[in-house]
């Protein structure tokens, strides 16, 4: 993974020192809360319902085992003993005291981490495929370009005060595990007909109040021109993006108000202008720097192994389920990718305790080249595990409560913090997730239902990505009463789609029954176990599901 040099260290240290000064100005009253707010927001510090929340950046979801131990120490020393993996692959701490935040940032800085640009109207932490460098079919490791973008976007002087937050995701294969079509900018590494590497660039996707799938503004951009092209997009947005209405300020609205063609034209024109600055004024990264950064993402020292028949005859039913749900194919023979579920029944989705972090860090050291990932689905990943080590790894994970065999199943729910933490929430999210988990508690039944992605947001801001849930659940407030709106058929993979609203909102006590009805309808109509919920929905449309939901409701 990337390692800081003296320049990186000095920049992150400067941010810690600056923020220490800003906190001191706040505590002495030199700064009012209003003046302090934009400063703390540039450092990932939110004021929530009960306390401050600190969002630590995990750039493109990649952590070393030692960094995970540092996060564990922060959870232990400054929080209530746990952290929370967010849908942007970051880690949130819900209970830090303001006076301690500079010390937390210092501890992060010493481990080459930070909380820079995890909030505010700036370019946020760039996200990527949690299987990067491990899955087959990649043009190259997408994290090379994530790191390039991390550096370029960090304290970008022109784009630190955009109309609204700005999210970029990068993937390097046709199988999209980074949801690039629902990002402000989605970047897919690909090769052109001549076999040269470059990028497909999508702009204007996003969830929230008005969900959109991104438009392709460039089908192929040569690899060495990425940053100038990104500057052109950001500049057009900074100049033309709306600032009069918070809800119309994202770039997706600009793209749709200008029209895809006019927007693309404006970007291309601006890009030509930027290119006129010539090599001496170019913002693009020189090849030597690309090569330096790429050097940090070389493959680990894989052993020459043969694939084993590891899925055959596992002696334990729980282990068998875990193998079928949480273990994915690796590009190297003899290795596997392991998804570590942070969705045990009854816990807040994405929560992980300090002890679990330490245990997972040890397992990463022992079994996965000290490499750990966070995922936008609020789980974690050990990307490079020998197939022969799977039984021992499963046993160790189970011992520490991380052995849930439910990746991608009905209980692997994405849920935003909702009314338990968030001051914008209409409804609770976590308890709804827990009640659904409880209803589908039987692992055999879950396995029978198969892949089903349920995503829950406590308000229209859609932090729980409900628009792209196979079943999406959105909390709405009607005259002071909590209601839940159900959407169906959303997905964030290569066939990204926004879910359809199926009918009137449901009362809190109807939600779990509704999910069960949808599942039963699917089970009765599917052509067989190989037809997943989302495939059946695609074939059948919303009608049979609507009928099931509302006929007796």
């Amino acid at each position, binding site marked *: 993974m990337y390692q800081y*040099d003296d*320049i*990186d260290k*000095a*920049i992150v240290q*400067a*941010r810690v*020192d*600056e923020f220490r*000064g*800003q906190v001191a100005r706040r505590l002495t009253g030199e700064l009012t809360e209003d*003046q302090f707010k*934009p*400063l703390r927001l540039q450092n990932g510090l939110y004021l929530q319902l009960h306390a401050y929340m600190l969002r630590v950046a995990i750039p493109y979801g990649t952590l070393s085992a030692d960094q995970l131990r540092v996060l564990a120490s922060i959870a232990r020393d400054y929080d209530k003993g746990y952290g929370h993996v967010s849908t942007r692959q970051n880690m949130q701490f819900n209970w830090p005291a303001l006076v301690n935040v500079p010390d937390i940032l210092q501890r992060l800085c010493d481990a080459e981490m930070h909380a820079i640009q995890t909030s505010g*109207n700036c370019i946020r932490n760039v996200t990527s495929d949690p299987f990067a460098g491990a899955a087959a079919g990649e043009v190259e490791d997408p994290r090379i370009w994530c790191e390039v973008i991390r*550096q*370029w976007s*960090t*304290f*970008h*002087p*022109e*784009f*630190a*005060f*955009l*109309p609204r937050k700005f999210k970029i995701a990068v993937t390097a294969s046709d199988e999209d595990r980074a949801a690039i079509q629902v990002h402000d900018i989605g970047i897919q590494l690909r090769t052109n007909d001549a076999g040269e590497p470059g990028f497909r660039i999508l702009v204007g996707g996003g969830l929230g109040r008005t969900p959109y799938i991104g438009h392709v503004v460039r089908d192929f951009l040569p690899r060495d021109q990425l*940053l100038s092209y990104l500057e052109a997009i950001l*500049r*057009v947005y*900074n*100049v*033309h993006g709306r*600032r009069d209405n918070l809800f119309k300020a994202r770039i997706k609205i600009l793209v749709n108000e200008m029209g895809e063609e006019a927007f693309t034209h404006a970007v291309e024109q*601006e890009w030509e*202008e930027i290119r006129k*600055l010539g*090599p*001496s*004024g*170019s*913002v693009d*990264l*020189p090849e*030597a*720097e690309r090569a*330096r950064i790429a050097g940090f993402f070389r493959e680990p020292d894989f052993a020459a192994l043969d694939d084993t028949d590891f899925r055959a005859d596992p002696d334990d039913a729980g282990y068998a389920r875990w193998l079928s749900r949480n273990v994915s194919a690796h590009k190297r023979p003899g290795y596997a990718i392991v998804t570590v579920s942070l969705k045990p029944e009854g816990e807040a989705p994405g929560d992980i305790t300090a002890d679990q972090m330490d245990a997972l860090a040890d397992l990463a050291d022992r079994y996965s080249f000290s490499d750990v990932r966070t995922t936008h689905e609020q789980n974690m990943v050990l990307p490079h595990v020998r197939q022969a080590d799977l039984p021992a790894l499963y046993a160790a994970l189970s011992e520490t409560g991380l052995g849930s065999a439910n990746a991608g199943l009905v209980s692997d729910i994405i849920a935003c913090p909702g009314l338990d933490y968030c001051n914008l929430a209409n409804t609770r999210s976590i308890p709804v997730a827990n009640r659904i988990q409880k209803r589908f508690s039987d692992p055999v039944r879950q396995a029978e239902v198969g892949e089903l992605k349920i995503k829950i947001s406590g308000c229209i801001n859609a932090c729980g990505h409900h628009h792209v849930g196979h079943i999406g659940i959105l909390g709405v407030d009607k005259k002071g009463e909590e209601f839940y709106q159900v959407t169906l058929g959303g997905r964030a993979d290569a066939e990204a789609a926004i879910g359809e609203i199926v009918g009137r909102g449901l009362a809190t006590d109807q939600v779990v029954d509704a999910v069960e009805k949808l599942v039963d309808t699917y089970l009765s109509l599917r052509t067989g176990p190989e037809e997943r919920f989302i495939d059946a929905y695609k074939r059948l449309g919303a009608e049979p599901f609507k009928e099931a939901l509302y006929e007796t409701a």
Partner: protein
Amino acid sequence: MKLLELKDREWTLSDLDDGPGLLRVDNGQDLLESPPDLTGISVVRLDWPQFKLGQAFTQARLLRQRYGFEGQIRAGGAIFRDQAWHAARCGVTAFEIEDGAEDGWLESLHAYPYHYQRAVTGEAAWALRHGGSA
């Protein structure tokens, strides 16, 4: 109000005066579309009606890099000291500040020793890493 101004690479404090040759550019003015008329202009004043209206960062950069303006670019309005280094990197060379606030502004202007990207001023980290030759 005072003016904190970059003169011979040093930030120096002087009295604020709106002499002739000053052009006020509105925060919403689209400089991508067309440049302002800069004939006879020695100072362009950019405005931050609210700190978060960040179009002026782009305006400064366009004035310097696209329209070749070499006079003073002055920042005024609700811009605060913690934003000043961004503005300076985009080409701003003078700030309208409250009386007595200069120490804080100077501290903020000098808070960061390095920068990742190429802008108007301040060498990019990648250029330093590879011997200054890009």
